[in-house]
């Protein structure tokens, strides 16, 4: 893994920007186009790019399987938990009005948290799917392809 020097350097340089862009899409979702799903995919793209250039082993070193699975679950729980808060305040499930003092801010908080949950889940799921395929033991030689 010592060739493709330019690629490696460029990828390393690009990576922070990809992640930053993902964060922008994530947080800006309620003002413009964007949201958790898109952000999650962009996040995952960053990791996938990293894995493509540096190898899957590098990626699994940073993001081991348990972390990915925990990420998937944490996102779902964040989403459902946000919904449950409304339930425990005597409102219905996914009712965000009670999340803050006034209902308008409540809605904002609700959307933000839910989208964050979506983002985390999507990012870790997409990465996990990639890892699952990429780490599959190849039973065919490269020449056979």
């Amino acid at each position, binding site marked *: 893994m010592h060739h493709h020097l330019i690629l490696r350097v460029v990828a390393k340089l690009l990576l922070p920007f990809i992640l930053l862009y993902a964060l922008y899409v994530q947080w800006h979702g309620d*003002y*413009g*186009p964007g949201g958790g*799903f898109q952000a999650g995919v962009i996040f995952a793209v960053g990791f996938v790019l990293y894995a493509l250039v540096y190898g899957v082993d590098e990626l699994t070193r940073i993001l081991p399987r348990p972390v990915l699975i925990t990420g998937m679950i944490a996102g779902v729980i964040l989403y459902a938990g946000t919904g449950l808060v409304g339930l425990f305040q005597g409102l219905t499930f996914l009712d965000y009005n009670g999340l803050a003092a006034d209902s308008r801010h409540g809605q904002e908080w609700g959307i933000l948290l839910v989208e964050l949950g979506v983002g985390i889940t*999507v990012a870790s799921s997409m990465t996990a*799917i990639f890892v*699952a*395929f990429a780490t*599959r033991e190849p*039973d065919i030689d490269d020449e056979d392809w």
Partner: protein
Amino acid sequence: MDDLITQITAHYNYWMVIILMMIGLYITISRGNLIKKIVGLNIFQTSVFMFYISMGKVTGGTAPILTGNPDEVYSNPLPHVLILTAIVVGIATTSLALALAVRIREAYGTIEEDELLTIERDAEAAEDKI
């Protein structure tokens, strides 16, 4: 004649959707390669996504984002939201299908449908002989 042409051109998005849909279904049904089938399935699903998205389009409308102008014409956002969900489902389906294809390749050594059928038929014949 003009009517017919208007009919066709005015609804060109639906024509595109139908053509894509047929291409996708045809590939799914006619191809023997499991991966190609998945590709066909994806095209088929994509046609539906386009169907929904074009359905929500309002002529001259902008993105449905509040600008403060009450007269602003904007496209219907609901179909887009729905299709976002459908896309997620599509991705999940595709990755599951690919995973199955990988497992089938490992278990049978092939992903060609006719070869798989031959193998399974032989297995059934062998079971019958016992």
